């Protein structure tokens, strides 16, 4: 992993783990390995996800752009990662359709294809730590971004002929949880797709190999992986994942259901715990995204929220995509707090923890919890997460 080193003068920026590797004193004097079939990482670079029993989190603080390397894409599944033979794979589409059909993987690839760079995020993407010793990976590592390629649902839906009373469809996976979610047909027609490729290559097993549903901007769980079946219906199916899970208590004892859209969010990924910085120029960096469209601006505060300044956004700023932001700041060595907030094209501004609690009741955390993340810069340059309470 990229770790942080403290040099003599205290310069602490993302740097790599040194290794007792066999390296020449002077690489210009020794011919290196010849071209190969597959490249590998430098032995000095060991980025890793952070796995638990149910998920594995992307090391946001170790990444430099918006594409997540496929092997670092976050994982979340409910019955482990199934092994599926692509030769035997079939997708069934039935229910309220004119022509119930089944498609092999080759069939899916023959249809006109579509690609987009888009984030995916688990709606349970929030953690905190009372001591502030928590990294961006631990707080918000259940989001990643890829270039997805596949066939649009609108293309497949026309092929099977959906009936006028079909308003929802069930998406079912072929994992051990036989994961199911009910999806409004409208979303499918708008921008849903069946993705079979990720960052140029076949989708990875953890991301749904050989094919998954992909619903841009919606909570990750709805983009059912290892998709084996789509059934059209005139009502939602009320599966466990859209009732017992992926719903959230809100005000007045109510429980919010079918909360698909991922609200706009941002997080600073540098400087963050466990970095120690020094006085002078610091480029504050992070990512911002919204499930409702493009990010229009990211504001950064370096004085604990008193004033806010516009961060620079890295183009291209894409629809429903991680957008890199950067903000140049001169730290004078006094203790302060830095934070970022995203604004999307609907005019939504990422709220504070207290704004969320005020709006939703005393349920702190849970699904769709997207508060501003604050980082405390101590007098000695040590960065800590500021716990919300």
């Amino acid at each position, binding site marked *: 992993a990229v770790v942080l080193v403290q040099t003599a003068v205290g310069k602490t920026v993302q740097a790599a783990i040194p290794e007792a590797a066999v390296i020449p004193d002077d690489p210009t004097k020794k011919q290196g390995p010849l071209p190969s079939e597959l490249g590998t990482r430098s032995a000095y670079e060991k980025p890793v996800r952070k796995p638990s029993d149910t998920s594995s989190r992307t090391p946001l603080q170790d990444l430099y752009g918006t594409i997540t390397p496929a092997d670092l894409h976050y994982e979340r599944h*409910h*019955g482990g990662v199934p092994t599926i033979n692509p030769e035997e794979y079939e997708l*069934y589409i*039935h229910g309220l359709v004119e*022509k*119930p*059909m*089944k*498609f*092999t993987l080759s*069939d899916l690839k*023959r*249809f*006109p294809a*579509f*690609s987009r760079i888009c984030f995916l995020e688990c709606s349970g993407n929030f953690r905190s730590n009372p001591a502030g010793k928590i990294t961006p990976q631990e707080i918000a590592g259940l989001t990643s971004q890829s270039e997805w390629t596949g066939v*649009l649902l*609108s*293309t497949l839906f*026309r092929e099977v002929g959906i009936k006028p009373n079909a308003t929802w469809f*069930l998406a*079912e996976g072929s994992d*051990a*949880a*036989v994961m*199911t979610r009910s999806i409004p047909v409208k979303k499918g027609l708008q*921008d849903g797709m069946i993705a079979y490729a990720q960052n140029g290559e076949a989708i990875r097993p953890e991301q749904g190999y050989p094919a998954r549903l992909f619903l841009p901007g919606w909570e990750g769980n709805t983009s059912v992986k290892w998709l*084996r*079946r789509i*059934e059209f*219906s005139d*009502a939602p*199916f*009320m*599966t*466990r994942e859209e*009732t*017992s899970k992926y*719903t959230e*208590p*809100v005000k007045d*004892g109510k*429980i*919010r*259901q*079918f*909360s*698909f*859209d991922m*609200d706009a969010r941002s997080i600073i990924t540098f400087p963050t715990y466990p970095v120690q910085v020094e006085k002078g120029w610091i480029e504050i960096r992070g990512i911002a995204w919204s499930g409702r469209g493009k990010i229009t601006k990211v504001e950064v505060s370096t004085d604990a929220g008193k004033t806010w300044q516009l961060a620079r956004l890295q183009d291209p700023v894409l629809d429903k995509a991680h957008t890199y932001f950067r903000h140049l700041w001169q730290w004078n060595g006094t203790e302060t707090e830095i934070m970022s907030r995203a604004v*999307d094209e*609907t*005019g*939504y*501004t990422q*709220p504070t923890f207290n704004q*969320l609690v005020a*709006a939703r009741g*005393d*349920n702190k955390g849970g699904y769709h919890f997207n508060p501003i993340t604050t980082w405390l810069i101590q007098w000695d340059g040590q960065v800590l997460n500021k716990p919300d309470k």
Partner: protein
Amino acid sequence: SQTTSKSSASSLISAAPVTKADSPEWPSTFGFGKPATPQEIALLDIDVRPDGKGLPSGSGTVLAGKAVYAVKCAACHGKTGVEGPNNRLVSVAENEAAGTESNKEKTIGNYWPYATTLFDYIRRAMPFNAPGSLTNEEVYALTAFLLNANKIIPAEASINAETLPKVVMPAQKLFVPDDRKGGPEIR
């Protein structure tokens, strides 16, 4: 979007259409894929809806469910469905509002809006280490047992395709659709 230009080396700069979605000009069918027969579909079509559509024949009692539970479920969910180590299946303070500090555990009794979901989920996903291994009779019985343990149906109830959709779950009235819409308001 398939305009024909006969020029062999056109120097005009004209913006090409970008692929935003599929095109209404495309054929109504590409002819890829094969018809799915009712028999093929039936093998996969295991879902169960709140109105009972998808429920198989058969039935189960609380007593029968208790026996299956002890053998196949208790190791993970606890002797009475409360102890864990995995998800609590039985509400301990069913009068307290879901999600409050004193009742953080969301269970069948205080959080599940539809009884059919229980049948559907157990059949597709449990036991966690042997999913898809239960008979329909076992699933009906476990459903009955867990509904009774959560004080939703009486001990003598029998659960089948007729009775299950009629069970009204305590939490159903709590569920509201998402009202977030984007825009300035925080919801």
